């Protein structure tokens, strides 16, 4: 009884890029800036591929919501071992204001359409740090969720998942179908080797729109302004404790 997996991958600004705020304060500069797959999604893809290698999963479908360039991210997933890809095209202001709730609705619809037994996504995206998509997707599907997974094992009809929580590790059992979000220590993603990169070009990549799935992606939020955090001021040195107290009083701190 091999499972079918749906993996969500997001195209984000590469972690090493020094992000700059646009002069009109409507967002950050993304034009001409290096993008790559969200690192936690890479871990999610890797886990799906490993489950397939262990014959727990029979087919993996990767999904990405965004403009045409999202297809590059899907190609990377295909090169890592995913079987098919679905690109849900979202562009312009709808893309700029795309929120986890929209993506969760899309993933839920696709999970049903693709007859998935398992939905795996990264725990959060490194551009918005939301950590909401997995949880919302589970709610829309009314499926159990195992988030912050650092280990996944098949046990009988369900999965045993070890989760990273504030106090340490928690091990839970979830029935299938289920939604999982991948945490950092789940695995170390493989490099896509050239033969696989070449093979990936021939793998199916389907294009859809949110309308095809019956999902409304009109913006639910309005970005008022995006600004740099305040520049850190230089500290000041004082000679002794008396001066320190005087200074703190002057600043109104004590």
């Amino acid at each position, binding site marked *: 009884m091999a499972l079918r997996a749906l993996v969500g991958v997001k195209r984000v600004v*590469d*972690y*090493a*890029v*020094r*992000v700059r705020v646009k002069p009109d304060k409507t967002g950050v500069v993304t034009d*001409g800036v*290096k993008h*790559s*797959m969200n*690192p*936690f999604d*890479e871990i999610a893809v890797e886990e799906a591929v490993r489950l397939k290698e262990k014959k727990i999963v029979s087919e993996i479908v990767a999904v990405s919501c965004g403009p045409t360039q999202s297809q590059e991210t899907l190609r*990377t997933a295909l*090169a890592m071992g995913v079987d098919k890809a679905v690109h849900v095209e979202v562009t312009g202001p709808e893309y700029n204001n795309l929120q986890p709730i929209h993506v969760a609705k899309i993933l839920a619809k696709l999970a049903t359409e693709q007859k998935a037994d398992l939905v795996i996504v990264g725990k*959060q995206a*490194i551009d918005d*740090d939301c950590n909401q998509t997995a949880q919302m997707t589970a709610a829309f599907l009314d499926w159990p969720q195992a988030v912050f997974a650092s280990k996944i094992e098949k046990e009988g009809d369900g999965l045993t998942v070890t989760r990273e929580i504030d106090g340490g590790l928690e091990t839970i059992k979830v029935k299938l179908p289920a939604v999982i979000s991948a945490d*950092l*220590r789940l695995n*170390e993603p*493989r*490099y*896509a*080797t*050239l*033969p696989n*990169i*070449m093979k990936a070009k021939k793998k199916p990549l389907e294009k859809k729109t949110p309308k095809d799935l019956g999902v409304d992606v009109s913006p639910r939020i309005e970005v008022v302004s995006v600004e740099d955090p305040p520049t850190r001021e230089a500290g000041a040195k004082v000679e002794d404790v008396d001066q320190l107290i005087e200074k703190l009083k002057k600043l109104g701190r004590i």
Partner: protein
Amino acid sequence: MPSFEYKLSVLKSGHCVNKERINLDMNLQPGLRLLSNICRIRGFASQVQAPLTSERYKVTRGNFAALNDKDLGYFESLLGKTRVLTEESDLEGHNTDWLHMVRGASKLLLKPKTTEEVSAILKYCNERKLAVCPQGGNTGLVGGSVPVFDEIVVCTSLMNNIISLDEWSGVMVCQAGCVLEALNDYLMERNFIMPLDLGAKGSCQIGGNVSTNAGGLRLLRYGSLHATVLGVEAVIPNGTVMDCLSLMKKDNTGYDLKHLFIGSEGTLGFVTKVAIQCPVKPKSVKLAFLGMDNFQSVLETFKRAKQDLGEILSSCEYIDRASITSVTDNLNVKNPIGDFPFYMLIEASGSNETHDEEKLNTFLEKIMSNGTVTDGTVASDSSQMLAIWALRERIAEGLLYDGYVYKYDISVPLTTFDDFVQDVWKQVGDDVVRVCGYGHLGDSNIHLNITSKTYDPKVTSKLEPFVYEWTSKKKGWRSRPSNAQLEENV
């Protein structure tokens, strides 16, 4: 902002992120063992103290004066007590090179902040006949950056001001003590990059790079320092400041004296400021790591890369199996593809990602389909890029783990790289741990390294003059310790 945890994953993937301060959670998985390995290698290197150069090699101290209290008094009045150092613990790092192969016996370390101070120091030393050893980041691998006897070490570490950057022309003027990585970070924020890049970037200083005419990983694309340095300010031995600090790309007035300072290793003058032409930061950078079964494939891939990647080719490095295993075995860095006798690192940078991607993919498809390359990978994000570069940039570090390293930086015809390594293996036989070759294919420059468990004069006698004779037979060039005396007596 990337989450704190993801910075840790970069560490896990094998690259030490020097710049970011990270509080380590000690309960983390063995995947983070790497950090302790880094600490361990530092510990290892410092346990083995190098013998004094004056004792190991037959060198004779020149007829220079010896330091006295009056001299110390003068320097203290010039620089202040904090920048005149005589404690052995302060001098230790400056007396020994990064490889812990050679050690001098300097008793005095001076840290000037300005050209005027350097000028006063040299003027005084010239009058007193005190020998001086100019020093930057002390990252040189040929024993040229440290004293041989008791020369005064004049270190540029405090001369680290970036004076100006003309954002129209891309010309940057800075003091000689600026660290290469710091310069690159400063430039990247303003959409430029340094025209050179080396593994030692976190510690090496631009003055030292210029004085040694450092090559590095980008020479293939941006040219040598003779091409990119527009001006040099240096202090000549009698203290006179020579201002050859032109900021113009084209300047035909008078003799082009700056070229004399580039590569003369401080023997003609002490470089204090540099004006350098900085290229625009490329919008797209791609990195491929390839494995092949024979050396002929390496040559064919290189030729193909020049033809198919053309103007976007920015780096072409060659690594043999023995070199890569020094990093994978000794430093626990992962090799993304299988075991091959030869590897290549090809970097392509340009102004248009789509255009570059297409060129790179066409190139890779061709070399894969015709069997030139057996396997390979393309870095999909920055952390993979750093991890792959680590396989090349950390070889010098990995080799230290074997024990003692005999290093030769040599230029020979490209086609003879592997023959060279094989001939040296045959020459040294079983006395060594490994013989390996890696380097800049694009520049015909190979780093030949031999390692043994401990220093063995038998190995040295087998290597020299064999390596030099082999090189001259092929009409090549090799770098040597700058101290001419060492050369005479070996």
